[in-house]
């Protein structure tokens, strides 16, 4: 079904007293998700954001609690603040990324309130990709440039209008009755073309989990990571990476406990107070990265923790290419004990 961009914008803007609108905008570092005042400020033609929208639910730096000390006493305050939000223009890979993060922030025992309160108060409007970058490989990860998984409302850009699909109840509740019209034959053809598109770049992950089950001690890891600088670029730009650190920020008698993004690529990540480090080499850290995404996560959550957005490939300073590494795993010879 179709809605004109103008009308859609009006509907979204009409909600501005209850919801803030987060959408892609152009800024110095590239396109990113930021709060915008009106729908007209939203950037419509973008490949994908430079950084994934995960920071909306899991900010790079956030206060968990704050406290004030008074002599030997202390008062502790919960710092959780939530605003109702419309997150507009999320690409299929990132929407799927959010579904994967949902599984991280809620496990068999705990639920992370900071993430979930924000998540529950946000409506995700997905947007199909009409252009596909050579480094995109979402089709290999069970997605496609037009997969609506993870979105509450899903749009396909038709120029002056959108093809609009309500995916969830939450999406339905947000916009109410929009007065959608039928697509013309020409538009239908365009929608069909977008829906049938696949990424040009593909890798095979069909057997990777089982393969990795047997690869912890494989020599494949030995030289894989030699050129890796150990920076956090790939993790920070990944829609599913979620490791974090908790630290203290203090000023005189008051302070707060904050969490900040951390990454398994950093040597300090696992360093014990005693000086012992269970993952003391970059080899162990890369193995952890691959194992976590393609094996441990699958065993624990039933899904591969990679969505094929290609950001890590685009931003790596030494051209560590996830597709090649996956390929390498597929080709690696198993060591028979």
């Amino acid at each position: 079904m179709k809605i004109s961009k103008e009308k859609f914008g009006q509907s979204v803007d009409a909600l501005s007293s209850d919801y803030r609108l987060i959408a892609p905008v152009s800024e110095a570092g590239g396109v990113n998700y930021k709060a915008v005042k009106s729908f007209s400020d939203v950037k419509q033609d973008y490949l994908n954001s430079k950084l994934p929208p995960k920071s909306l639910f899991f900010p790079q730096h956030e206060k968990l609690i704050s406290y004030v000390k008074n002599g030997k006493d202390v008062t502790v305050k919960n710092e959780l603040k939530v605003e109702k939000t419309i997150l507009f223009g999320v690409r299929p890979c990132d929407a799927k990324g959010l579904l994967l993060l949902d599984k991280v922030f809620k496990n068999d025992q705990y639920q992370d309130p900071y993430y979930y309160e924000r998540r529950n108060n946000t409506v995700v409007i997905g947007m199909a990709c009409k252009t596909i970058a050579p480094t995109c490989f979402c089709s290999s990860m069970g997605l496609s440039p037009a997969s609506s998984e993870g979105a509450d409302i899903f749009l396909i850009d038709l120029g002056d209008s959108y093809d609009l699909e309500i995916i969830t109840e939450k999406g339905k509740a947000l916009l109410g009755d929009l007065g959608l019209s039928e697509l013309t034959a020409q538009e239908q053809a365009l929608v069909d073309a977008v829906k049938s598109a696949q990424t040009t770049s593909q890798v095979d992950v069909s057997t990777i989990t089982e393969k990795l089950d047997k690869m912890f001690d494989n020599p494949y890891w030995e030289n894989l990571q030699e050129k890796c600088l150990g920076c956090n670029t790939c993790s920070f730009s990944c829609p599913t990476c979620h490791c974090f650190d908790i630290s203290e920020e203090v000023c005189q008698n008051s302070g707060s406990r904050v969490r900040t993004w951390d990454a398994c690529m950093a040597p300090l990540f696992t360093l014990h107070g005693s000086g012992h480090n269970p993952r003391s080499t970059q080899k162990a850290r890369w193995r952890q990265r691959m194992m976590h995404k393609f094996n441990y996560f699958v065993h624990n959550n039933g899904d591969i923790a990679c969505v094929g957005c290609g950001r890590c490939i685009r931003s790596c300073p030494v051209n560590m290419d996830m597709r090649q590494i996956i390929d390498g795993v597929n080709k690696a010879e198993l060591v028979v004990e």
Partner: protein
Amino acid sequence: MEQNPYLPITMKLTKNLVETEDRNINTFTLEFLNKQDEENFKYMPGQFAELSAFGYGEAPFGIATSPTEPGILKFSVAKVGCVSNALHLMEEGTMVGVRGPMGNYYPVEEFKGKNLVIIGGGFAFTTLRALAVYMLDPAHRGDYGDITVIYGARNPGLLLYKEELAAWENNPNINLVTTIDRPAEGWTKHVGFIPSITEQVAPSSVNTYAVVCGPPAMIKFTLPVLEKLNFPPERIYTSLEMRMKCGLGICGRCNIGTEYVCKDGPVFSMAQLKDLPSEY
């Protein structure tokens, strides 16, 4: 909204006791401020908690008390980093934060009707103490067979809980063996490393479980001894340490393979560990 697992309860530090002669380990006694907090803090021996020194940070420590000791929690902490240093310097009466209890615990249900040998080295004795106290409690003692504790330290001054150890010496419900690495003046008990002492004094492995905690080197050399004594891996338990931040299985640093030590551990049987990558 559900309870926020990042929000600590405040507890009062009622005692900051220097535990060892080298002044490297202190035992903190914390008091619950109200009944509600205590009721919410239901724990078992082997679990840990995240202790906050407000202004310095938060770190995970094993709970040294047993749930049979109401009203308080105790932690024995070595001075290694920023949080532990701050705790050591803390005046009695100061409020500290506690999040927990976290992780799993020693399988005291599975131990029922069995003999137990508890083997500890150095300051890893904290949750083992909790386990021993739990089982020695009159309400539970009848559930278990013989209890043997083998506890070693480098020298007599480094043994934790000296008064308690002295009391156990004379307690017919528990067989305590203490050892130090090298002979020392005034020391009349065992001298030697834990693996060799274990070989000498360990009870028969028949119907017996072993719980081993200590520095990696001690564990490494004690396991073969237990194997030699015919303890199967399913009946050897240990508690692991990892760098942890959230304690909730989310922050991503304490995993060994698919298992998060904070959430799925810290107590593992040797049989479980054999199936996991050797990354700890």
